C-alpha cells in the first residue's frame, strides 16, 4: 500500500513561536521579497501562523494556528489547472510541477486556505546568501506558483535511503523542516495509511478537526483543538 502523508497540529502544544515559518524558508529556498513588495501582499510564507483574537481587554484571548497547504484529497486547486502543474501524487501529496506551470493563478484563486504563492519576479539572493540554498529544492523563477510540498525532498531522500538499505520506513523517519524545528512538538508528520503511526493516532483524537471541513476539500492536516483549564 502506498504511503498517504499527513500531518497533525496540536494547538494545545503550539505556542505560536514562528520557528516553523523560518525553518520552512530555510529548507525550501523561499525568497524574501523585501518591504516594498511585502507591502503589496507579495511576501511568500508557505507556512504561516494565524491569530484569532477573542474578547476585549482584560478578558482577551488569542489562539495561534499554523497553516500550510492542507494537501486536500479533493483539492480545489487541481482540477482548475489547465496544464496539470497542480496535481495529486500516488502518496496523496498535492504537488506542483514548476516546469508545467504557466502562471494562470487559477489554483491560488481556487484554494480556500490561501496557501499558494505566485512568483512575481525572479528571486534574489545577494551573494553570498545564495550559499544558504538547499540543493535538493529547485529555485522557482518568475511566473510560477509555489506552495508547501510537505518537504517532498525529505520524503524522497528517506524513501531512497530505506530502499537502498532494503528496509521499511519507520514512523517518524520523515520530518518536514517545520516538524523537525518545532521544539514544543506541536507538529507531527507521518503515514495516514499506517493506523499505528502517531499522526494517525492524533488524527483520530476527539479534539481533532479539519480546517474549513465543510467545504469538502478532505484535508490531510488535522488540527487538535487547544484545551482550556478545567
Amino acid at each position, binding site marked *: 500500500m502506498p504511503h498517504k502523508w499527513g500531518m497533525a497540529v496540536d494547538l494545545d502544544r503550539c505556542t505560536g513561536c*514562528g520557528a516553523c515559518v523560518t525553518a520552512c524558508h530555510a529548507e525550501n529556498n523561499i525568497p524574501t521579497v523585501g518591504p516594498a513588495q511585502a507591502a503589496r501582499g507579495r*511576501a511568500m510564507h508557505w507556512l504561516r501562523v494565524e491569530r484569532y*483574537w477573542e474578547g476585549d*481587554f482584560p478578558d482577551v484571548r488569542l489562539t495561534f494556528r499554523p497553516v500550510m497547504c492542507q494537501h486536500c484529497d479533493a483539492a480545489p486547486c487541481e482540477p482548475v489547472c489547465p496544464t496539470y502543474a497542480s496535481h495529486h501524487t500516488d502518496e496523496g501529496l498535492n504537488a506542483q510541477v514548476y516546469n508545467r506551470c504557466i502562471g494562470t493563478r487559477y489554483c491560488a484563486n481556487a484554494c480556500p486556505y490561501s496557501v499558494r504563492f505566485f512568483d512575481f519576479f525572479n528571486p534574489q539572493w545577494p*551573494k*553570498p546568501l545564495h550559499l544558504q540554498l*538547499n540543493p535538493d529544492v529547485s529555485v522557482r523563477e518568475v511566473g510560477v506558483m509555489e506552495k508547501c510540498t510537505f518537504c517532498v525532498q525529505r520524503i524522497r531522500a528517506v524513501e531512497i535511503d530505506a530502499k537502498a538499505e532494503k528496509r521499511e520506513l519507520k514512523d517518524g523517519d520523515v520530518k518536514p523542516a517545520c516538524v523537525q524545528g518545532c*521544539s514544543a512538538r506541536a507538529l507531527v508528520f507521518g503515514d495516514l495509511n499506517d493506523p499505528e503511526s502517531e499522526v494517525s493516532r492524533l488524527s483520530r483524537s476527539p479534539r481533532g478537526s479539519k480546517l474549513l471541513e465543510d467545504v469538502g476539500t478532505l484535508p490531510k492536516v488535522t488540527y487538535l483543538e487547544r484545551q482550556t483549564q478545567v
Partner: protein
Amino acid sequence: MDRRDFIKLTAVTGTSATLASCGNSEHQLIRFVPDEDLVPGVAEWKPGVCPLCAAGCGLSVRVMEADVETVRNGQAGVVKMGVAKKLEGQAGHPISQGGLCARGQAAIQVTYHPDRLAHPLKRSGARGAGELKEVTWDEAIAELVGHLDALAAAQDQKSLAFLTRPRRGRRLALAAEFLNRFGAPAPVPFELFGEEVLRRANAISFGHEQLPTFDLARSRFVIAFGADFLGTWNSPVAQNAAYGAMRQGRPGQRGAFVQVESRMSLTGANADQWVPVKPGTDGVLALGLAHVMLSNKLRPADAAGRAGAAIDGWSGGLADYTPARVEQVTGVSAKRVDRLARELVELGPAVAMIGGAPLAHTNGLFHALAVNALNGLLGAVGQPGGVFFTPGFQPSVPGPQVPSPQALQNLSAKVLLVDDVNPVFGAPKAWKVREALAKIPFIASFSSFLDETSSLADLILPDHSFLESWVDSTPESGALEAVTTVAGPVMKPLYQTRATADVLIEVAGKLKSPIALPWKTAEEVAKSQPPAPSPQSPPAARSPERLALRKYSEPVFDGDAAQYPFHFLPYMSQQFGDGSTAHLPWLQEMPDPLTSAMWSSWVEINPQTAERLEIAQGDLVDITSPHGVVRAPAMIFPGVAPDVIAMPVGQGHETFTRYASNRGVNPIGILAPATDAETGALAWAATRVKIARAGGGNGSLIMFAGEMREHPHEHETR
C-alpha cells in the same frame, strides 16, 4: 588508486599549472582540493552551537559541497568547499532537544550576510563618517599592539577597557585573563535586557546567583509573572519543549498555566488565564497569593525557608498583602487572588516564574524576591515540576554583571575594545554612550558588521562567524544537569576574518612586554575548563545586606503622570531579540506572531485608548517621554492595558546593513535612565509617555495578514 583519488590528483595538477604564478603553491592547493571528503549532493552533519542568545542551543549543521567565490592569499577565485546549508537543533542535546527557534533557524544568514565585513578595516575619515580602508591583518594587529604598548609605556594599563556581552563562554574568560595580566580593569558587560535583578534575588532567596531552570514538563500548574518564557526569555527552546510536554505529554493530565502581565506576550497568549496587572506591582500579587495560602493554612509558612525570611511580614502571615489590598494595588480582584491561590495548592505541583518587565522597575528586586518566596511556599524549589539551578555553573567573569550607566559613561579609557555588543543602539540615549565613546582616543571592534557602535571604531578586526570557528557554551540555565557544548568549525572561513580569541592571543604575544596566556589557540580556549569552583561559602552567606527584610515600595516612574499618562513598555522582539538580529532578512520578513507585521516598527495601543484619541490602525503616532520622541505607526492591539503603550525593540537601526538600516524606530532611545534601587540594573519599564496622532499612515506598517480582527468595523460599533 581509486577513481576518486585519480580525479583529485588531476585536479591538483591542472590547477597548479594554471596558478603557478600565484605564489605559495601549498596554499593554492588548499584552494582547489578540498581536504574534506565531501561527495557532491551528499550531506554531512556537524555539531555547532547557536550564538544568538545565551541559551546555548546545540546545533546540527547540514554541510554540503558548494562553489564559493572568495579571496585566498590575495587571489580571487572559486573554491569548492563544504558549506553550511541548514541549521537544526541537535537531537539529544539537553537544551535544544532537536528543536530550534526562529532566530536560531535564521542564524545561518549571519555567516552568509552580503554586508559581512570581509577583512580588517581602518578608519580613514572622520569618526563615524563610514570612511574605512582595507588593511592587512599584520597592519591591523601592529596598530592595536602599538596602542597597547603606548599605554604600557605610560604606565597607564588601567586605561584599557573591554566592552562585551555578559557571560559569553570561554572567550570572555580569555578576555578577562588578557585584561587581568595586562593590568586593565575587568571586562565591562552590557546587555539591555540583562538579568542581574533575578540573579541577585536568587542569590538572596536560594543562595544561587544564577538564572533558574524550570521543570515544566512535570509541573501541573504554572504561574508566570511577565516572563516571556515561550518567546524570548531565558532558554526558550528548552522551555517550549517542556511546555509541550506539560500540556499534552502526560495522558489525562494537562498542566494549567496562568500568565500575569500588562501586555499580552506570545507566552501570555498561550495561558489558560491571562491576568493583567498594573505595571510594577507583580510582587504584591505573588505575596497576596502567599497570604491566602498562609492564612488558610494551605501550606506551612516555614516551607519557604530563607526565601520567605527575606520578606517583611512573612512570619506574621503577610498581613499587609490581604486580597483586598492586592486588588487595590494590582487591579486583580480579591476573589481572583483567593481562587488562584487555592488552585496553585490544589492542582500542584505548581511553580512560579518571573522575568522581563516586572524586574525592570525601580522596585524590581522586590518582585523577584516575592515570587521566590511564593516558590518556596509552594515547595517548588528543587522538586519535580519546580524550579532548579543547573549545577556547576560558573560565570566566565566573576562579579556583578550590571550594565550600569556609570560603567558606560565613565569609560574614561584611552583604548577600548568592543566585542559583540552594540551599546550605542542598545542603551537609553540618556546614558550618553555615544558621547562617552567620542572621548575615547582609540576604539577597536571585533564586529562582523558595521553597526552603530562598530562604525565609531578606528580599527575593525572582524571575527569569524560561529560556523567558521571554535565555539563553546555552558549555559547557566535551561537544563537540569550541567551542559557544556564545544564544537569545531563546520566550514572554512569565507573571508579574511580571524577568530577573536586568536587575535587576542596574537596581540598578547606581540606586546613589548608579552603577556603569557594559558592558551595558544582559539581551539584551546574553547576546549578549556573553567577553574573548579572555590570551596568558600556560597555568595548567599557573604553579605549582611541579605538579611534585610524587603517590602513593597511603590514603583517610581519617570515622567509626571498628568503630563505623561501612559506606561511605556518596550519588549524584546520575537524576531530581533534586543535588536542584534535585525540584519537577517528571514527575520525581517517573518510575520510577527502576534500582529503579522513584517519589516516594520509599530506601537501597540489598546482599542479603547485608540478610539478615545482618534487613532486608527496604521496612523502615525508620536510617543513622547521626558527624554525624547519617536514616531511609529499604530497597531490597535487588543491585548494591551488601556494605560500601557508597548513597542517591540529591535528596529530603528541607523547603521546595520542593508536590511535593517533606517528601518523603523528604536524605542530604547526615549527610555529614562531609571534603575532598580538595589541592583542598579536599568529599569527599562519605568518610563512614562504621552501619545498623539501625528498623521495618517504612510505605508510603513507592513502586515502579512489583514486587520487584527476579521470584522474590525463590527467590533467598533459593538
